């Protein structure tokens, strides 16, 4: 109780105290509130910042992990590619080496073989030499042959000459023309005359059947009697004389032509055609001929005649008056009979007519 008494005893002071305190509290309320807010805001700020930084830290961890992962992946890829490229380059280089070796070998062995080429060129040179030699020999041979033939011909010519001049041979009594006594030795011809065989009369060569005219005129050539018993003068080669004498009859073309030659030829042709005909369609030569063409006057005549159309009474009428002013037909050409006889006739006195 004492305490209560004590309390009561202090009641006034408590009341006063209470008022003071309340007043103080009221006085400090705003300030304290602001301070509390400040403290709280600071704290909350710290708290949020801590959280945010926590979040950031976490994000960084995630990011760095991911980035590291993807970078590693990328790097591995790069390495792989680089490795592949390196490998490929290496392989290519090696392949080139192999190929170049092989190609070089192949080309040298089969395509541009140096030794082969050299050998080929040498062989070619040899072959060329051989060809040249052979051709040279051939040409030489041909030349000799030609020369030989020419010489033979010349020899023959001289021999014939000698035969013809055989009468100039010197006799015991008289030296011949070629054996002049004023010369130390006789002419070459003289020696030739001595060796030569006398010319014998030969019959003229027979006419071959190919170059005769078609008519049958030249059937019988009877042997003519000799002009003299022995050949008289050495004026011409006996064979030539004989040929002249036995020359087959060469009638003029008019005489040689049979009157029925055209018919014969046509008949023969018809026969021939009948024999050899394979197709029955005959050859029609006048494919381009014009049946109704105007008559064209000849170049040098003055005839006014035209071809008259068919259906008239007559084809040509006589108009004397028309002919009166007309020039005469020109005879421009003279005949040359001399040409026909040239070198052909030979009389028995030995003169050319």
């Amino acid at each position, binding site marked *: 109780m004492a305490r209560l008494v004590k309390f009561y005893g202090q009641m006034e002071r408590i009341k006063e105290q209470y008022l003071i305190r309340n007043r103080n509290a009221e006085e400090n309320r705003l300030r304290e509130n602001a301070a509390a807010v400040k403290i709280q805001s600071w704290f909350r700020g710290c708290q949020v910042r801590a959280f945010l930084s926590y979040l950031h830290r976490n994000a960084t961890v995630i990011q760095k992990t991911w980035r590291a992962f993807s970078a590693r992946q990328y790097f591995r890829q790069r390495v792989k590619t680089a490795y592949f490229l390196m490998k490929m380059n290496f392989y290519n280089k090696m392949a080139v080496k192999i190929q170049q070796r092989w190609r070089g070998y192949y080309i040298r062995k089969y395509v541009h073989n140096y030794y082969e080429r050299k050998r080929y060129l040498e062989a*070619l040179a040899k072959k060329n030499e*051989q060809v040249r030699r052979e051709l040279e020999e051939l040409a030489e041979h041909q030349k000799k042959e030609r020369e030989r033939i020419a010489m033979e011909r010349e020899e023959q010519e001289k021999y014939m000459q000698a035969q013809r001049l055989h009468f100039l041979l010197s006799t015991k009594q008289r030296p011949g023309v070629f054996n002049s006594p004023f010369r130390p030795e006789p002419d070459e011809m003289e020696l030739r005359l001595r060796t030569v065989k006398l010319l014998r009369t030969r019959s003229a060569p027979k006419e071959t059947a190919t170059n005769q005219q078609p008519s049958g005129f030249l059937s019988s050539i009877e042997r003519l009697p000799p002009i003299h018993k022995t050949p008289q003068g050495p004026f011409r080669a006996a064979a030539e004389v004989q040929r002249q004498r036995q020359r087959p009859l060469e009638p*003029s073309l*008019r005489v040689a032509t049979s009157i029925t030659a055209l018919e014969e030829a046509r008949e023969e042709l018809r026969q021939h055609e009948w024999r050899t005909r394979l197709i029955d369609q005959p050859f029609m030569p006048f494919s381009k001929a014009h049946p109704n063409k105007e008559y064209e006057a000849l170049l*040098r005549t003055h005839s006014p005649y035209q071809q008259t159309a068919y259906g008239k009474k007559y084809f040509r009428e006589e108009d004397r008056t028309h002919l009166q002013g007309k020039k005469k037909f020109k005879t421009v*050409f003279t005949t040359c009979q001399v040409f026909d006889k040239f070198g052909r006739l030979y009389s028995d006195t030995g003169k050319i007519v």
Partner: protein
Amino acid sequence: MSQRHVLQVFEQYQKERMKFVQTVAELATRPQNIETLQNAGVMSLLRPLLLDAVPTIQQSAALALGRLASYSDDLAEAVVKGDILPQLVYSLAEQNRFYKKAAAFVLRAVAKHSPELAQAVVDCGALDALVISLEEFDPGVKEAAAWALGYIARHNGSLAQAVVDAGAVPLLVLCIQEPDNALKRISASTLSDISKHSPELAQTVVDTGAIAHLAQMTLYPDAKLKRHVFSALGQISKHSVDLAEMVVEAEIFPAVLACLKDPDEYVRKNISTLMREITKHTPELSQMIVNAGGVAAVIDYLGDSRGSVRLPGIMMLGYVAAHSENLAMAVIVSKGVPQLAICLAEETEDHMKAAAAWALGQIGHHTPEHARAVAMSNVLPKLLSLYLDTQSSEDLKAKAKKALKSILQKCTYVPALEPLLYEAPSNVLKHVICQFSKVLPHDSKARRLFVTTGGLKKVQEIKAEPGSALQEYINAINTCYPEEIVRYYSPGYSEALLERIDNYQPV
């Protein structure tokens, strides 16, 4: 008047006609008479005589006409205008062989002048009649017909085609096989005339098996026949590779080389033409000819002959060398280059020189080795002089320049290049300097020689535009030498030295 008198008149008339025709035919053989005969109106007088009752008169008239027509194309035209051809064609089918021969002669004489006249002959249906005469028994008629066909076919492709269409080729091939030499000759010439126009015509000739028969005749002794045979083979093989191969397959090759030594000039010419036509197609064909020793034979032939007959031989060498460097080497090994150089120097005509220059260019343009071989036979100065000669034709100049350029671009043979330094114009000099700039850096002896012969001096004297290719080449040459040497040989060096003396102050 008795019957005899009456007949005598006719006899007389016939005799006179005969005499007239024969005299005209005789006179027509001499060219100086033709003018007079023409003025006297011989054409209009001969025309009725072609229809005469007597075959001999017809024949002689045809002969006279043929002689006249072969003399000039005016007269041939007169024959065509006088409507004589249809009569002839008609009688070509009708008459005896003598007349056929004469008629074919007239057709030939008309057709030979110009394509138009030949066309006129074709238009009057002569081809069928001529082809039928090719079947005649008599070789003379066949010959005349083949000859006329040849003259028709030689003008142009369409006329030759007309001859082929008339079916002449198989018969001509048959005619080749006849024993008569003249007939063979003419038929071969006709085949040659037909096949020369186009590959198709040549193929038709080949299809009838002509090559085998022609190949057989290459070894005949008759020179004229050989001429035509080789000409025909050449004309056939000129068109295409296939045809050329067919000619080669007839195995004529080593054997016909003997004909290059034939005394007849035209045989030699035609055989070398044949070889040219074959070699120009492919390297393989050329190789075949080379291996047979053909090149050596042709080179010998070039040595033996003079003038324009050399041309095919020269061209053949060019064609062979153009195919590949191996073949060009073969030509060089066969001693072709000196021979070509001789041809280049000896021949007077421009086209021959041009051909020789071309052939040399073809030989030299492959490798430095080839160019060296060509340069060693001393043709470069000759080519240069041809190029610079004002008398040369344009073609020759162009060919000489091309050859020179292609040889120079490969040539590394310094002694041959040096003379060109002094003579060549700038467009050739460019190539010469270029070659020097390639050779000198690698060859010390050549460098020394180049200085001692005065080449360097000459090079310094050349005025080149700065930046041009020529200047670059000159610079490349200059870098091969020490600077003092280059300066020593530069023009105006002595003045520079003298100037230094003037400026020198003795201490």
